[in-house]
């Protein structure tokens, strides 16, 4: 069997001749002795000159072809990206995904296109696919702020706290191409919201402290941070932020209301009333109004106010006893306790006996000159409010004011 076009034949007849020069071929050798040197020279010429020339020519042609190809790909990539952007802006996430996938195909490694696709997928609810793209992007740019933020949001949706924290921090400390401070700040706010949703107040507090340290001079931002600090229970820091906000804008209703609330929680009722009343004037609000009402009651009932004389103080103590007595009666009635005839060991009965004693003492004219007795009366009133709060539910109105006053007095340094 011989190969088509193959001059080397497997078997040669005895009188074989070279097809090129006609010279005799001596089997079993298949090379023509006359042609071999010429063939070698031809081969070397081809190898040294022809082959490199051919390679160079093909290389040059390929360069032109690839250039054209890349240009076409770039045009397609831009066209499809533009369609994707338009669809996304029009709210058509599904169409945007189709267009952006095509754009990704033509743009190869263009990360902005992939990122946009990931955003579109996220917006359309295709979380797994969005995360797959984002993780690829994250592998390439682990410090890209936007990629980290998108991943954090996906992890948050999956209730992966550790993962979300990791990526939120990546967003907070990562690189942002435009307005880095704004994006980092917003990322931090989002992180705090996430932590508060998970009731992780300590961690949220730590983030807020860091956030507060980097705030620009902007009253709204300070007020926003102050409100979040209130949510985590860091009242002193919250008040400081609201005060900072008021320094920048003393008429800010949010800052005034926030400062009032923070002061209230810190049992600083006089400044609280001042802030809250200003806030109410700036922007009426039912919550603020209720707070103002309570604060006014507290301030009106406070027997420890420095501006009071002895008679006024004694009157406030008597009023406290009356309020406590009424609360005791209503609580006993609601629980069907006969304060007069109940067994000696009942808590409410015990308070009732003490109350009756102190009420009789408070009616004496000498009551105003007996601060120890007054303190005793106030303590009893506070105890009654605490007990009835425990037994009959949270107090309202004057009872609440009395309870808060008692708590303030107990927590004050002696």
């Amino acid at each position, binding site marked *: 069997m011989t190969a088509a076009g193959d001059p080397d034949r497997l078997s040669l007849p005895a009188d074989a001749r070279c097809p090129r020069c006609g010279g005799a071929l001596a089997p079993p050798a298949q090379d023509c002795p006359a042609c071999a040197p010429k063939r070698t020279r031809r081969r070397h010429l081809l190898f040294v000159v022809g082959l490199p020339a051919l390679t160079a020519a093909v290389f040059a042609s390929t360069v032109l072809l*690839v250039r054209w190809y890349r240009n076409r790909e770039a045009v397609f990539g831009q066209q499809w990206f533009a369609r994707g952007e338009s669809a996304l802006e029009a709210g058509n996430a599904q169409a945007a995904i189709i267009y952006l996938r*095509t754009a990704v195909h033509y743009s190869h490694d263009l990360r902005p296109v992939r990122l946009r696709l990931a955003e579109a997928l996220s917006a359309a609810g295709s979380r*797994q696919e969005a995360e797959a793209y984002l993780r690829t992007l994250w592998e390439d740019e682990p410090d890209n702020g936007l990629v980290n933020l998108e991943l954090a949001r996906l992890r948050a949706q999956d209730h992966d706290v550790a993962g979300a924290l990791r990526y939120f921090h990546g967003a907070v400390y990562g690189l942002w191409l435009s307005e880095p401070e704004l994006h980092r700040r917003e990322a931090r706010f989002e992180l705090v919201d996430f932590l508060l949703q998970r009731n992780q107040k300590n961690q949220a507090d730590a983030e807020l402290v860091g956030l507060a340290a980097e705030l620009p001079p902007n009253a709204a931002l300070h007020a926003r941070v102050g409100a979040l600090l209130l949510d985590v229970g860091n009242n002193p820091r919250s008040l400081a932020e609201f005060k900072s906000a008021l320094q920048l804008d003393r008429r800010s209703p949010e800052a005034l209301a926030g400062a009032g609330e923070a002061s209230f929680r810190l049992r600083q009722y006089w400044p609280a009333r001042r802030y809250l009343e200003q806030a109410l004037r700036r922007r009426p609000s039912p919550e603020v109004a209720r707070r103002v009402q309570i604060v006014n009651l507290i301030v009106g009932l406070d027997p420890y106010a420095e501006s009071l004389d002895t008679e006024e103080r004694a009157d406030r103590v008597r009023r406290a006893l009356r309020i406590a007595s009424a609360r005791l009666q209503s609580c006993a009635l609601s629980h069907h306790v006969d304060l007069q005839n109940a067994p000696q060991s009942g808590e409410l009965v015990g308070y009732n006996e003490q109350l009756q004693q102190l009420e009789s003492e408070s009616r004496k004219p000498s009551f105003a000159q007996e601060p120890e007795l007054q303190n005793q009366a106030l303590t009893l009133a506070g105890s009654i409010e605490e007990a009835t709060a425990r037994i009959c539910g949270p107090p309202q109105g004057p009872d609440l004011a009395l309870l808060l006053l008692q708590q303030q007095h107990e927590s004050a340094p002696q």
Partner: protein
Amino acid sequence: MNSLPETLKATPSIPASGPRRRRLRFHRLGEEQLFPLLAIFIGILSGLAVVCFRIAYESTRWALLGSALLPPRSRVLVVPALAGIAIAVLLIHVFPTTRGSGVNQTKAALYIYNGYISFRTVVGKFIGCALAIGSGQSLGPEDPSLQIGAGIASALGRRLELSRDKMRLLAPVGAAAGLAAAFNAPVSAVLFVIEEVIGRWSAGVLGAVVLSAVASVVVERWFLGAAPLFRIPPLPAPNPEELAAYAVLGVAGGIASVVFVKMIAWLRAPLKSAPRWTQYLQPGLAGLLVGLIGYFGYPQVMGAGYVFMDQAMHDQYGWRMLGILAGLKILATTISFVSGVPGGMFAPTLFIGAMLGGAVGELERHFLPHLAGSIAAYALVGMGTLFAGFIRAPLTSVFMVLEVSGDYSIVVPVILSNTIAYVISRSLQRTPLFDLLSRQSGLDLPSLEELREEAVLRVEDAMRPPRLALSDGHQPVSEGLQRLDRSLEPLLVVHVEGAGWRGLKRELLAGLADQGRGSLTLAEAAAGEFSLPVLHPDHPLDTALRHIYDWPLLPVVHRANPRQLEGVLTLSDILNTYRRSRAQSEV
């Protein structure tokens, strides 16, 4: 091996003066010296050709189906059918040798046609496959790239008037270059060519294959970038428990491979033997059927499908869709291939594997969320699994997955899943795909899988202890003659100190005895004889055949102690061993 041609040895000597001496040295550059350089050029040219090929089928796709990933339905229905008719005309009237994927055609060049692939075939493959893949036929570009590279190598070899031996070696060199550029994976390409085309590891050919593969990949990356074939999301390291999940994938992949092969085998034979006029219609009809699949909602099965594999790895599809795509791709590829449309099977295999792997992964994630890893990992392993089960190249399938992913952490799941699929495929479908196709085409190509499985016969399998025909050389000739007569061996083997093993024939000993020199020692008698070539027990039996015709008996000696005779070997011993081995394999 090859030595300088006799003609060059007969060239008159040239005086040793400066420039003429340099010309003499240049003339002495033979094929052995030129071959590595030629391999590099083959790699470069093949890489350039594959780059152009890729641009060709992509541009064809843009022109025929548009730039959208999911083409308009009207085009999906019409374009593949019309392009199929055009392909049929080209195949019948212009490029009749371009049918098929290209792998068997390259093997045929190597084993039958002395490395010959016509350049017309290269051009036809280029045009035909660009049209086929670009119009949406469910075929891939890798196998054609393999043949294009082999064809370029063959053309170069013919122009350089290389010897037949070198021409045969050029086909795999070019094939490796073409495949490496197509996959952007040089290691996998080299392994595939050695595993499936050449079938043996030889230092000489391996060097050239590696050079050409590397050169082609360098060129390809220069033009098209170094980005891997797939943008794979980061893969978490698999837990040991997950291996059970990958084992399930191996089973699924093995079964899918068998189904795929049997469908092709079942459909191809009757279509090949159909009347000639039907061959004008078969590609068009295939295009229409593939177009219908695309028209009714699954255009992802059209073309090579790499972008959709990428999307599958990015969790775009649910398990139902993935399963459907895997099944439809098997159907579409079968239709395209058996109709005679030129194109490759590698990309469809990867597609099916990716979809199947993703489907299995999604299902396992649904029912056993604590057990399953990322879908990308399953899709990737699935690619290798189908490659191992369908193409039956187990080594290539493992390295290919590692190369396209760049991630070594999944090597254990890959090996496990691939092995299971390979075993299942071998058990249920004895003949591998390429062997099956070659036999249907009337070519009796060597089955490299069978060659790998064959037991290698060694000298130790055939040798026997010497029957007294052994001497240390001190005995007299008369005694040696007696020993030889008693042993019935054809030769007396004598070890001569410092001179190795010599063989003394009966005629020589009898002649010396007749001359009255029977007291001469055997060592003295052997002084004028040639040394016997020695064998070692671990030598392949083929090695013994090269020497046995010159000597009726050969000594087999210990490697650490050449004086220690392990046995002797004759031609009849060798032939009997081959006969026994064949009888055992037939049983």
